[in-house]
């Protein structure tokens, strides 16, 4: 296994309107000291709810940081190259550099990717436009040929290239944009809630397509962001759980989902509704309260106001990240101080 993507201590926020130097203005602290790794050939899932910073993290990993978002600390490396994030001193935009990186090293597939298609252009004109912006000398015919060959290789009907967006279903549009965004064989694909506008049948087809990208070595790794845990169980080998900008738990998918250590991961699993859970006539427990606003986030562990096992220290200091199993960590004072619990037992097993 080799390391494909690494994020080290990334901290970023949205600077609000105001006067005075940028450092002193109120800031929505969307990502707080996040470190992540993605191995070659792997799928890393990032789980979390609206406003937890997962989309912000996605744009940072994809190197598309734009004001008012500002990265104040940390770095991101993909396949040995540093992804440009605007420097702490508000360094001049490295626009050109990120255009070279985008599409070739990292590509992004957002929730509304299908809306990238121009309703007045046929799909093949869109393909030509995209490729031309990366390879100025490419001809229209070459671009279309390239897309056609790729569609055939992935088992998609090449005839959609001749269609207009309104003639395609939402699921097909999303798959077409996924194919086009990976035409230059980027190392990493960052998929941010790519399935949330689709029905389950289309969701399955998109996930199968993404896994096919990996199998065919079109891309070398995927970061998949969603709040749907069953989707992560399906596609991800490792899962990172985010809450209010902080990473609370990272580990192998099955361990994180089925023997969660962090109280927030546990609550999220309890609230998940799936067919086989036998939940019919059995009321699902939900997490009380709401996520905090992030201009002045709760001190210490940001989950402490909603946490059922919060202790005095939880509101005083940021919890340490402690190992709870093999390549499985949680950032929680309760887990750190309780070697006899479920998490502690897992920690012993790992040793």
């Amino acid at each position: 296994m080799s390391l494909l993507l690494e994020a080290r201590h990334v901290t970023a926020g949205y600077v609000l309107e105001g006067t005075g130097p940028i450092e002193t203005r109120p800031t929505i602290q969307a990502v707080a000291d996040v470190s992540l790794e993605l191995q070659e050939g792997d799928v890393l899932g990032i789980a979390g709810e609206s406003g937890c910073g997962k989309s912000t993290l996605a744009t940072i990993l994809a190197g598309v940081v734009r004001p008012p978002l500002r990265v104040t600390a940390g770095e991101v490396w993909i396949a040995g190259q540093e992804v440009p994030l605007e420097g702490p001193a508000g360094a001049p935009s490295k626009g050109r550099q990120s255009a070279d990186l985008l599409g070739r090293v990292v590509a992004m597939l957002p929730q509304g990717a299908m809306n990238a298609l121009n309703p007045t252009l046929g799909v093949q004109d869109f393909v030509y436009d995209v490729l031309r912006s990366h390879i100025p000398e490419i001809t229209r015919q070459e671009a279309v040929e390239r897309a056609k060959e790729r569609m055939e290789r992935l088992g998609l009907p090449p005839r959609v290239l001749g269609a207009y967006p309104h003639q395609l279903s939402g699921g097909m549009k999303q798959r077409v944009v996924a194919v086009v965004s990976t035409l230059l064989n980027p190392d990493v694909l960052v998929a941010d809630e790519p399935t949330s506008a689709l029905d389950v049948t289309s969701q399955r087809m998109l996930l199968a397509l993404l896994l096919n990208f990996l199998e065919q070595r079109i891309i070398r790794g995927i970061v998949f962001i969603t709040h749907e845990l069953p989707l992560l169980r399906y596609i991800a080998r490792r899962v990172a759980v985010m809450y209010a900008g902080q990473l609370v738990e990272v580990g192998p998918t099955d361990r994180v989902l089925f023997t969660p250590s962090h109280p927030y991961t546990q609550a999220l699993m309890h609230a998940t509704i799936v067919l086989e859970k036998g939940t019919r006539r059995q009321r699902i427990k939900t997490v009380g309260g709401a996520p905090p606003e992030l201009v002045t986030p709760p001190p210490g562990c940001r989950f402490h106001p909603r946490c059922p096992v919060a202790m005095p220290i939880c509101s005083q200091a940021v919890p340490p990240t402690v190992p709870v199993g093999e390549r499985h960590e949680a950032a929680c004072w309760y887990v750190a101080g309780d070697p006899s619990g479920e998490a502690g037992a897992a920690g012993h097993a790992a040793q």
Partner: protein
Amino acid sequence: MPHSDSVLIETRHLTRTFGQGARQVRAVDDVSLCLRRGEIASVVGESGSGKSTLARLLLRLLQPTAGQILFEGVDVTGKSSLRELRQYWRKVQAVFQDPFSSFNQFLTVRKLLERVLGLETPSLDPEAREARVRWALEQVALNPDAILGKLSHEMSGGERQRVMIARALVVRPLVLVADEPTTMVDASSRASILNLLLDLRDEFGMTILFITHDVSLATYVSDTLFVMQHGRLVESGPVEKITESPEHPYTRQLFADAFSMSERG
């Protein structure tokens, strides 16, 4: 079909088409179903199966091309004057998918809820209005004092959707049509909204039509399932029966496609 007291809404051969000639789409095609008092019934099907068109027909926001809608045994299909529609909406209310776009961003929660009370005849005095608004917010577990003055951007998606449900409840309707109310909210808020639907049924005997593409949610919340495909009702019945032995191939496919926690790609 003989009319029974337990049936609140009945549709007979309900059909709605869009477009003309060869490009005509039969969005809802010959749908006959019964919605019983005090039950939660779910309409499931993929995008484009006609679920939302059916909801709009039942809400009388759209005229059917053919067929009838009976409410408490009375054919309401032709009753489409504004006065008659307002009477209908006093009894049948809706919550939609997107709490971001269905929310007037210039109105506070108080204004939003008070407006709906305009449907009440005779109109309520200010004190009764205030009491009703507070009652509705309490039903959806929101603190009226904290939320009455808020604008839409000051609330989370889950809160907005709760306010939209309170908005529907404020006229104390008999029926709530909920069209994908949980699609745009988070996993944890989703469960609490579904629990709220269960409470409305159990405490007030409210009749709820829940529209979703997610059979897991439908199975959790409903008594009856209606499965739609290409505008047609392909299977219907008690949820236990359908989950145990789905008859139509499309129903089987829907259940097979639902993501479970035990499956890997």
